[in-house]
């Protein structure tokens, strides 16, 4: 069987980038058999430099070095920055997996723009560029006849964008409500189930690796807001930016409010309400499909023909998110 070579550039080799590399190794044979392609990673870019090998990087070796923070010891390590790699190394698809900066969208924004303008498809998990410049980036992709895919930006492994694209084509989406941030959901669940304060719940979330050292993005609702902006553009054809989203986080929720909700058979959840372009804590009946526990994410769509559909799953994690990234890559290939 003759395999078609597909060259990939990975920008950002943190949790998501490494998760993707691991899953790519695990599913290599499956992808070759089912899609008749050989997915070759020709560049891995990190802060300070990149590994480049046009014949394909040995990912197992790169992973081992990255785990020990010794990526620069790789024999193909160069000091070339990601933007230069995009300009000089030709690949079919660029995976933009750097962390989000919602104020500027950088460095992801320039990476995505440059890749599209160079005629390469982009698959990204980086919310900020899309939340800020959705329509501009789509226009650049269209005018360069390449694709910009972003399933991994919302809900990690949840196939929400592709669900709309491949299974709900004829539907008009009338409303979308979602629990789109695992950390805030974990904290609210702990407060409700164990009666602990927010500080205690947050510390626990940090200890088990769910929350970042600075969980402000999650608790203030910013992360959810970025996802609402992406869903509004992609699923409801609104032309909006992150700055149009009204955001109230969960930091001022008292244990007493949680107790009151519980007494009345409800829970409090941080909800992204796409119709209203709003993120806010909301009261939900305990038997509602959006009442999911722990760090889980859930998205409920109301469509004119299919009516209510709710999907629940892991909204974060390197391995889980790789499911969405690979789905986008294979979608482009097919």
């Amino acid at each position, binding site marked *: 069987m003759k395999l078609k070579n597909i060259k990939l550039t990975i920008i950002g080799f943190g949790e998501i980038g490494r998760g993707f590399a691991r899953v790519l190794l695990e599913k290599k044979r499956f992808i070759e058999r089912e899609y008749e392609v050989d997915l070759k990673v020709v560049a891995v870019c990190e802060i300070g430099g990149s590994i480049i090998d046009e014949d394909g990087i040995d990912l197992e070796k790169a992973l081992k070095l990255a785990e020990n923070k010794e990526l620069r010891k790789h024999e193909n390590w160069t000091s070339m920055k990601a933007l230069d790699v995009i300009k000089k190394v030709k690949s079919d698809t660029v995976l933009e997996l750097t962390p989000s900066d919602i104020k500027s969208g950088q460095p992801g924004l320039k990476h995505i723009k440059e890749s599209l303008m160079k005629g390469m498809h982009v698959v990204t998990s980086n919310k900020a560029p899309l939340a800020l410049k959705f329509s501009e980036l789509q226009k650049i992709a269209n005018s360069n006849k390449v694709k910009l895919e972003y399933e991994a930006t919302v809900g990690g492994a949840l196939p929400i964008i592709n669900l709309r694209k491949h299974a709900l084509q004829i539907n008009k989406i009338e409303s979308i*409500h979602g629990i789109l941030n695992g950390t805030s959901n974990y904290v609210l669940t702990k407060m409700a189930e164990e009666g602990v304060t927010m500080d205690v719940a947050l510390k626990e979330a940090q200890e088990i690796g769910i929350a970042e050292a600075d969980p402000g993005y999650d608790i203030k609702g910013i992360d959810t807001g970025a996802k609402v902006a992406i869903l509004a553009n992609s699923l409801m054809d609104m032309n909006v930016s992150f700055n149009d989203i009204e955001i*109230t986080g969960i930091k*001022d*929720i*008292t244990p*007493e*409010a949680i*107790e*009151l*909700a519980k*007494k*009345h*058979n*409800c829970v*409090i959840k941080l*909800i992204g309400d796409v119709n209203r372009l709003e993120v*806010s*804590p*909301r*009261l*939900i*009946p*305990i*038997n*509602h499909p*959006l009442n999911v526990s722990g760090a889980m994410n859930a998205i409920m769509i109301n469509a004119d023909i299919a009516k209510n559909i709710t999907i629940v799953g892991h909204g974060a994690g390197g391995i889980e998110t790789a499911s969405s990234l690979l789905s986008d890559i294979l979608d482009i290939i097919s």
Partner: protein
Amino acid sequence: MKVDMKLQLRDVPGSLLRALEPVSVHGGNIVSVLHSREDGGRVSVQISFKIKDQSSLDLIKRELRKQNIRLSEILLEGKRYYSKKTLSFILIGHVIDTDIRGTIDKINDVGLVSDIDVIMPSPEKRSSVMMNIDIDNRKIKKLNRLINEICKEKKFLVIRSLEG
């Protein structure tokens, strides 16, 4: 005139009888009564009855509202006559010390605060107040605007129900 009325009652002895009384007092001839228990200590009741005219229906409604009985829907000759929702809100802040009576009165101008539950950990700490508000479906936006105004003025955090 045929009336189908949906009510929400508390699941306590005598509540069904109290709800039926205004119907018969104002000349309603009860045809059927269906009731089912729901979560949260509530009973959903559907009463079908016949009345002489619309003013009798208005008297029945007024009497039921006086008793704080929630009317969720009325069909008059099969057509929707009056439809209402009960929305829940939690207000967090110094809700008691910032004239809770005034807050309720303002809300009652638009809807009806039919239930209230308060947890106040100590006078200097923020209290959490849950309110159920009966509201005509057509006035939900107005109620939301009003609650936003109250929250801005009194520095409350509001937690709305999903449908609110």
